[in-house]
């Protein structure tokens, strides 16, 4: 039963007690023979893989419950699709905090937060990724001394106005370049306004800036590796929470219920804004979903595309994990209100 021991000792309860049980399993379990961690690990991996393969062969064919399957498909789809972007994001974030000297950011960005915010917002146009990548990157920027307001403007604008997303929007709305322009203008405006409001009214104690001790020399690679693993574990757990919530809503909310509200002018904008939060579609795909919501007005579709990359269930989970719940309860409602308001105004002017 040597292979059982590590599984038991790695349970969350033991983990919560921390510190005092770092030598696991206790030496007295196998007196006179100190456990070799590598042999143990091979046992653990081997037995887990065996259980999973047996499960795939004997359990999966019998789990033909259609709501469960539909839920699992959407849940896995969100997790699987987000993971490469998350890996890219945490790698970039770890590189920012371990390899880029802090002095670089003070030179690259204007000193005054009011001026740094629009610059950082516009810089979001060059990060080709969706929202899962931008949260850890913004955390890394803050850890390296970038004004939080500027990092937040970058966090909001990067997933919405990067070239990949704008091209996808153009493809989803053929012959309607004004949708692309409206999306760019509205998203950048919301990002800059949110950054300025945070610079003016935000308090330092609301925001938990990820701690990143600066290291030099050969230990950098080790710090890079540890930071990346830490961020991946941290954000990944919350991504799973967001994915599960979004899958539940996709399976539970009847689409007909949403379409019934399409005709009401102001309500329809709010309905699609809320739908963007609940569905948590990746920003590179949301234009296709928006263009399929044909009963709704163009302004409502714009609100869907502006809100989605800035506020959705998986982002709420990721932001709470990275910057703390006290930040999330303030910043997320602020962003949502700004996104809806600016979309409505942009829609009036441009669409």
């Amino acid at each position, binding site marked *: 039963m040597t292979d059982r021991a*590590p599984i038991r000792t*790695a349970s*969350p309860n033991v*983990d*919560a007690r*921390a*510190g005092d049980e*770092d030598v696991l399993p206790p030496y007295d379990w196998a007196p006179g023979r100190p456990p070799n*961690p*590598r042999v143990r*690990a091979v046992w*653990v*991996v081997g037995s887990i893989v065996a259980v*999973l393969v047996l499960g*795939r062969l004997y359990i*999966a064919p019998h*789990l033909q419950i259609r*709501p469960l*399957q*539909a839920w*699992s*498909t*959407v*849940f*896995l*789809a*969100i997790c*699987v*699709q987000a993971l*490469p972007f998350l*890996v890219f994001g945490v790698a970039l974030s770890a590189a920012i905090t371990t390899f880029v000297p802090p002095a670089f950011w003070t030179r690259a960005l204007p000193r005054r937060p009011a001026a740094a915010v629009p610059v950082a917002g516009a810089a979001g146009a060059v990060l080709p990724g969706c929202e899962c990548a931008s949260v850890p990157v913004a955390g890394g920027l803050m850890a390296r001394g970038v004004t939080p307001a500027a990092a937040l403007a970058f966090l909001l604008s990067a997933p919405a106005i990067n070239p990949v997303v704008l091209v996808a929007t153009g493809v989803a*709305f*053929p012959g309607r370049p004004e949708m692309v322009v409206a999306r760019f203008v509205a998203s950048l405006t919301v990002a800059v306004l949110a950054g300025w409001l945070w610079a003016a009214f935000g308090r330092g104690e609301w925001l938990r800036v990820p701690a990143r001790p600066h290291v030099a020399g050969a230990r950098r690679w*080790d710090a890079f*590796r540890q*930071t990346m*693993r830490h961020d*991946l*574990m*941290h954000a*990944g*757990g919350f991504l799973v*929470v967001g994915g599960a919530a*979004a899958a539940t809503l*996709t399976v539970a909310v*009847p*689409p*007909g*219920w949403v379409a*019934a509200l399409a005709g009401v002018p102001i309500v329809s904008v709010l309905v699609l804004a809320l739908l963007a939060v609940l*569905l948590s*579609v990746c920003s590179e*795909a*949301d234009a*296709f*979903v928006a*263009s*399929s919501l*044909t009963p709704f007005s163009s302004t409502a579709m714009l609100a869907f595309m502006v809100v989605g990359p800035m506020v959705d269930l998986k982002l709420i989970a990721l932001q709470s*994990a990275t910057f703390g719940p006290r930040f999330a309860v303030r910043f997320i409602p602020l962003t949502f209100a700004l996104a809806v308001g600016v979309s409505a105004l942009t829609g009036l002017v441009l669409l």
Partner: protein
Amino acid sequence: MRKATQNLLLVMIGVALLHITVISGDYVNYVRPAFQIMLIGAAAVIVLLGVVGFWIETRDLDHDDGDRRAEQENHHGARAPRTAWLLFLPILGIFLVAPPALGSFTASRAATRTAPAAPPPPQEGYAPLPDGPPVVMSISDYVGRAYAPQIGRPATLPGHQVVLTGFVMPGPGSAWYLTRMRIACCAADAIAMQVIVRGAPMPPKDAWVQVTGMWGPPATTTTRTVFQPIMASSVRRIPKPPNTYE
């Protein structure tokens, strides 16, 4: 969560991703096939992170005593929050549920049976169909072409035999729907594309079929929320395609 478990978890996530992308091919049930390279790359990075972490940290353990170990475990960044345990959920989902692609359950959930919106037409408009044998096309393409005259673009379907592929869903009266889910990025954004099949008996529900036939005008032409019909000349059962989305 201690370091050793984190390394193990990373390896397991990477293995699960490699399993669905390289071995079982299940990833097409969740995301577009174009994601394969990115997923393999991400999986490789994750496995590497776990294996290198495991290698370095067990190497240290071989030489160090318990005190040094305790100090390392408490050092910044060593422990992950308990939410990290949730990362086992997708792994369990991939192996124990192994859910199939979205199908009629999701497609039938639209409470009011409104037809799906036509997909955006290509920038240069739809090309005329060639004469000769029936043209194989996606249901999205068919619906888009059928809808084109309503927005002032040339009609390309009348007079041509086409072949559509999808699964069977029951419809009103003796008619039935040929359905296929369309995804832009992942299954979370799936939309059911449907045409109504007339002139052929309904195969069993959920069966995969190829319908050969011609476009016929829908019952009412006033709104765009009307299912485009296909007048079937033949219906052929086929095995479920590897990628069920279009």
